[in-house]
C-alpha cells in the first residue's frame, strides 16, 4: 500500500472514532452504526460475490446466525452485557462454520443456480430457527441491556462496530492484493481456465465464502445486542440479503472501494428519504434509483467513473 492512501484512511478512522466524543445526538450515532454495519456486510459479500463472481443472495442467513448465536450464548452463560459484545466473535465463527458446510456443495453450482440455492438456504435457516423452541422460536430472544445511559451505550456500540468495520476492510484490502484475490478474479473470469492455471478453485472459493460469512456473523451479533431483542423476521429478512447485493453492485463489485461507496450512499439515501419524504414515495424513489444505476452503470458507480477517466 502506498503511503498517502494509508495515511488518508488512518485520518478518516481517527475522525470517525472521535465523533462520539463531540457528544452528538443519539440519532447520529445510530445512523452511523447502521452505515458501518452495511459497509461490513457489503464488503464481506464482495469477497465471494464481487471477486469470485458467485452472487450469494442468502447472506442475511450468516448475519442472522451470528445474531442468534450471540443471543443464545449470552442467555446460556448468563454473560454480563459487556462480555456479550465479545460473544459476537465466536458467533461469527459459527456463521463461518455453517459457510463451510453450505459452501462445500453449493459452490460447485455456478451462475444463477448458485444465487437461487443461497436464497433457498436463507429461507431454510429462517424457517428452522422459527421452529426451534430452544432458539426462542417465533417469539425471538430478549437480551440484557447495558446498565448505563443510552448515549454511553450507543457510543460504545458505535466504537465496537467501527472496529469491526476497520477489521473487515483491512481483510478485504489484503484479499484484493493477495494471491487469493488473484485466484478469485481468475475464477470469476473463467473457472475452467483458472483450473488449468494451477488454481485450486474449489479450495479458494470456500476460503472466500468463509471469510465473507464470518464478518456478517460478528456484525449480526453486535446488531442483536444493539437491538436487545431479536426476531427471525428481522435478522433473516430477505430485504437484508438483497440490500447487501445491491449495495456492493451499486458501488462496484470486485473492487475494495465499491461496496463502501455503495453502502454509504444507499444507507444515506434510504435514511434521508424516510426522513424527508413519505414512506411510499421514499420506496418509489429508492427503486427508481436502482433501475437508473443498473441501466446506465451496470458495473457500478466506481467503474463508471474509472472508465470515464481512462477514456475507455
Amino acid at each position, binding site marked *: 500500500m502506498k503511503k498517502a492512501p494509508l495515511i488518508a484512511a488512518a485520518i478518516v478512522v481517527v475522525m470517525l472514532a472521535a465523533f462520539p466524543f463531540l457528544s452528538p445526538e443519539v440519532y447520529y450515532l445510530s445512523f452511523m452504526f447502521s452505515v458501518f454495519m452495511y459497509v461490513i456486510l457489503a464488503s464481506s459479500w464482495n469477497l465471494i460475490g464481487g471477486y469470485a463472481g458467485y452472487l450469494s443472495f442468502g447472506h442475511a442467513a450468516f448475519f442472522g446466525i451470528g445474531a442468534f448465536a450471540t443471543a443464545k450464548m449470552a442467555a446460556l452463560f448468563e454473560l454480563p452485557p459487556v462480555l456479550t459484545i465479545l460473544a459476537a466473535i465466536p458467533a461469527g465463527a459459527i456463521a463461518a462454520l455453517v459457510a463451510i458446510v453450505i459452501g462445500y456443495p453449493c459452490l460447485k453450482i455456478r451462475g444463477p443456480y448458485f444465487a437461487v440455492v443461497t436464497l433457498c438456504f436463507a429461507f431454510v435457516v429462517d424457517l428452522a430457527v422459527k421452529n426451534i423452541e430452544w432458539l426462542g422460536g417465533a417469539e425471538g430472544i430478549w437480551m440484557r441491556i447495558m446498565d448505563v445511559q443510552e448515549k454511553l451505550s450507543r457510543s460504545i456500540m458505535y466504537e465496537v462496530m467501527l472496529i469491526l468495520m476497520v477489521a473487515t476492510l483491512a481483510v478485504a484490502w489484503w484479499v484484493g492484493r493477495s494471491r487469493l484475490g*488473484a*485466484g478469485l*478474479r*481468475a475464477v470469476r473470469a473463467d473457472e*475452467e481456465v*483458472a483450473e488449468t*492455471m494451477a*488454481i*485450486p*478453485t474449489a479450495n479458494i472459493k470456500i476460503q472466500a465464502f468463509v471469510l465473507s460469512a464470518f464478518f456478517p456473523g460478528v456484525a449480526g451479533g453486535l446488531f442483536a445486542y444493539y437491538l436487545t431483542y431479536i426476531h427471525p423476521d428481522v435478522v433473516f429478512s430477505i430485504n437484508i440479503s438483497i440490500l447487501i447485493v445491491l449495495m456492493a453492485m451499486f458501488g462496484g463489485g470486485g473492487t475494495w472501494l465499491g461496496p463502501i461507496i455503495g453502502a454509504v450512499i444507499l444507507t444515506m439515501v434510504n435514511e434521508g428519504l424516510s426522513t424527508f419524504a413519505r414512506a411510499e414515495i421514499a420506496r418509489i424513489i429508492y427503486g427508481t434509483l436502482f433501475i437508473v444505476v443498473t441501466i446506465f452503470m451496470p458495473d457500478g458507480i466506481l467503474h463508471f467513473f474509472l472508465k470515464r477517466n481512462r477514456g475507455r
Partner: protein
Amino acid sequence: MLTGKKITKRFGGLTALSEVDFEVRRGEIVGLIGPNGSGKTTLFNVISGIHRPEGGDLFFAGRRITDFPPYKRAQLGIGRTFQIVRPLAGLNLVENVATGVLYGRKQGAGAREAREKALEILAFTGLTEKARRFPDELVLEDRKRLEIARALALNPEVLLLDEVFAGLNPTEIGSAIELTFRIRDAYGTTIFMIEHVMKAIMSTCSRIMVLNFGIKITEGTPEEVANHPEVISAYLGAAYAAC
C-alpha cells in the same frame, strides 16, 4: 515423460477416443493432427484434466495422474492453451500472466516478483507494448500469444498448444513457428501441439501422431506421416490413397 495408455473417452454413445496410446519424451516437439472431430482437443482435455477418461491411464514424470484434478496437473507442470482463446476478461495482460506465476510451479513468489516475471514472459512473447492493455483490445495474433504467455507463466514442463497457428496469416505463422522453437530452447519446455497448418507442423515437429475417429492411425516423422496411405485417405478420401 507424458504417457497415455489405452485412453478411452465417450460422450454418451459417441466414442471420442478409443484406446489411444501416446508418449511425449522430454525436449521433444510432438505434433497431433487429424481431421475435424477426430478427438484431438478431447485428448488435450483428458490430459489437462477437464475430461475424465472412461478407460486408460495417464502418467506424468513417473506418476499416475489419471485421478488428479486439473489444477494439480497444472501444478505438476502441464500447461495448456485453448483453441478458442480464453483470456481472463477484465484483467490486463500483466494481471493475466501474473496470476499464472502466483499459482504456478515455482510458488512463493510475492505480488511484485510475479509482476516482474509476468513482464519478462510478455517480453518473451512479444507483448511488452501491450502489457497494460486488456485482452478484448488485442488482435487475434496477440491473443494467441497471450494464451501462450499465460501457459508459460506456470513454468510448465510440457506445454499443450491447441491450434495456436489457426487463423493467422503466413507472416504471423512464421513468427509463431519461431516462438515455438524459442519456448523449447529458452525454457526447456517439451511441446505437444495440435495443428492444421501443415507448414507449421512439418517444420517444427520431430514426430507426429495422427488421430482419425478417435483412433490413432499412425505415428512417425513428418515425411513418414505425410506419405502414409491411411493419413491420405483420412484427409482426402480413399481414392487418393491408392494413387
